[in-house]
């Protein structure tokens, strides 16, 4: 059998393969450059960028739980200006599509960041972080309401011509209704899922482990929830989905693709094995060969026909 076509089409971006790295995992790309061939990724999503610099939450910021971890980083970032002038040049050098994860506390914040990024060369898309569960204002409150999500999406869309990907929070009763609101308001694609809201208690100190009390749960433990949400959203909206949540192996990535995701993002698994993206890509190619699938994109949503 001849070479497998691994490319996918994601809201106007032709990605050479569907394996990306999720927001918040690779920082701004350089920390992992010694260990990982960043240029072989389908795309790279940055850590969240806000208008002003943010110092983030006090420590402890992370802890481990069964097959998962909790984090409460709290949007620590140098602000959009420093991002564009100091971080982006190195990122661009990798030669992969750069998707900037955008967060804010107010609508105006988001718009200001989007405008600044609209003037910036070499970006592939924005990923709108409406779902970061760790910051009281702007984060969770917006992503759990269809109306607020729609307003935010429409406003940011108007401020920036780049393709807009909305990243959804899983901490909602009905993910499909939020997805529909985002798409109707102009979102070109969706990312899901962000972390589940959780917490851990240090029983010796009789106090929450994280200084922020609650944090975002990520890693293989959450995969069944993520796959279910991708499945539901794929039935509800026509736009492409970037699936993530606990992907450790090609088999896991296939669950998302078969459930309807066009691309996948590797998050927590990078901490465990920095080669995860490369191994997933290799495994997807092997799977396609074994199942005689010429184009990986033929697998997208295939499990809905069962």
């Amino acid at each position, binding site marked *: 059998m001849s070479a497998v076509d691994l490319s996918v089409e994601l809201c106007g971006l032709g990605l050479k393969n569907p394996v990306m790295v999720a927001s918040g995992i690779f*920082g701004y790309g350089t920390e992992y450059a010694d260990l990982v061939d960043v240029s072989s990724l389908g795309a790279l999503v940055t850590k969240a960028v806000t208008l002003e610099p943010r110092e983030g939450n*006090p420590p402890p910021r*992370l802890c481990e739980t069964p097959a*998962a971890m909790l984090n409460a980083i709290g949007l620590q970032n140098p602000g959009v200006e420093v991002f564009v002038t100091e971080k982006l040049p190195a990122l661009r050098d990798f030669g992969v599509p750069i998707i900037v994860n955008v967060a804010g506390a107010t609508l105006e914040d988001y718009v200001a960041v989007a405008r600044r990024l609209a003037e910036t060369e070499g970006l592939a898309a924005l990923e709108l972080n409406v779902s970061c569960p760790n910051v009281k204002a702007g984060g969770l409150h917006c992503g759990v309401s269809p109306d607020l999500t729609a307003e935010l999406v429409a406003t940011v869309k108007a401020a920036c011509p780049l393709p807009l990907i909305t990243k959804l929070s899983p901490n909602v009763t009905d993910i499909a209704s939020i997805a529909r609101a985002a798409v109707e308001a102009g979102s070109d694609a969706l990312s899901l899922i962000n972390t589940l809201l959780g917490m851990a208690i240090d029983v010796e100190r009789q106090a929450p482990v994280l200084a922020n009390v609650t944090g975002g749960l990520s890693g293989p433990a959450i995969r069944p929830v993520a796959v279910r949400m991708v499945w539901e959203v794929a039935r509800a909206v026509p736009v492409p989905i970037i699936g993530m949540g606990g992907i450790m192996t090609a088999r896991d990535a296939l669950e998302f693709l078969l459930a309807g995701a066009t691309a996948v993002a590797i998050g927590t698994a990078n*901490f465990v094995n920095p080669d995860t993206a490369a191994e997933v890509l290799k495994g997807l190619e092997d799977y396609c060969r074994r199942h005689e699938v010429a184009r990986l994109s033929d697998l997208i949503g295939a499990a809905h026909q069962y």
Partner: protein
Amino acid sequence: MFNLTPTVVSREQVTPVHVRLRLSAPEIALAALPGQFLHLRVSAACDPLLRRPFSIMLTEPATGLIDLLVQVVGRGSEAVAAAMPGQSFDIIGPLGHGFPLAPSGSQVFLVAGGVGVAPLIGLAEALAEAPGEREIFSLFGARTESLLCCWLELAERCVEFTAVTEDGSIGETGLVSEALARRLQAPFPGKRVIYACGPMPMLTAIAAIGREADVETYVSLERWMGCGVGACLGCVVPAAAPSVERYLRVCKDGPVFPATALDWEAMPR
């Protein structure tokens, strides 16, 4: 920084809860500086999920061997400590910034608390081998005598070694920080440097002692880690006031910090 799977060549049970592992890792042995660490994968399954950080105790560039000293405190360290010769580990390293070496002529205090002795043994070796002369004192604190793991490795590289146990079972009785304060009372005309590694309350005390005595002090911190390479911002500690950043990453900006670079008031336990 490498991602390797070195093999265990020997294993020694040093105390009931401490194991010394020797790994064959030539790249690490050549590149590592004292105070740097490795990020070890402790399970092939999803639980425990995250890697665990361990200091590089000693390196032998000529043979490519490196030594780790592992204290069993939970499931991850238990899995590492259980490794038998022939087994291999997935590691990332060397990571972080090591200890800056004190200049020739200085008086050096190595202050270890428990398994925190590991990086200080490598530091003692590097200080002894570095050009010039230094007077190396070491103080090793533990709850009780049997927990003074690998103390000989430290003692033989110093002009003076003091054991300090909380229960007085050997050496001085009390806390190692108190013993350090006593040592510092003896005047010394030249430069003095303190290097400390151990539990946070000990480091906090030593930072205060160093500040009061106006002695340059370096501490090596332990924090839970995600990535280990500076990307996730999960392992931070608060920086002292003049820093541009409110938080510093233990894995990348540390694990060794000048004590004055940190905000000890806001330091989590």
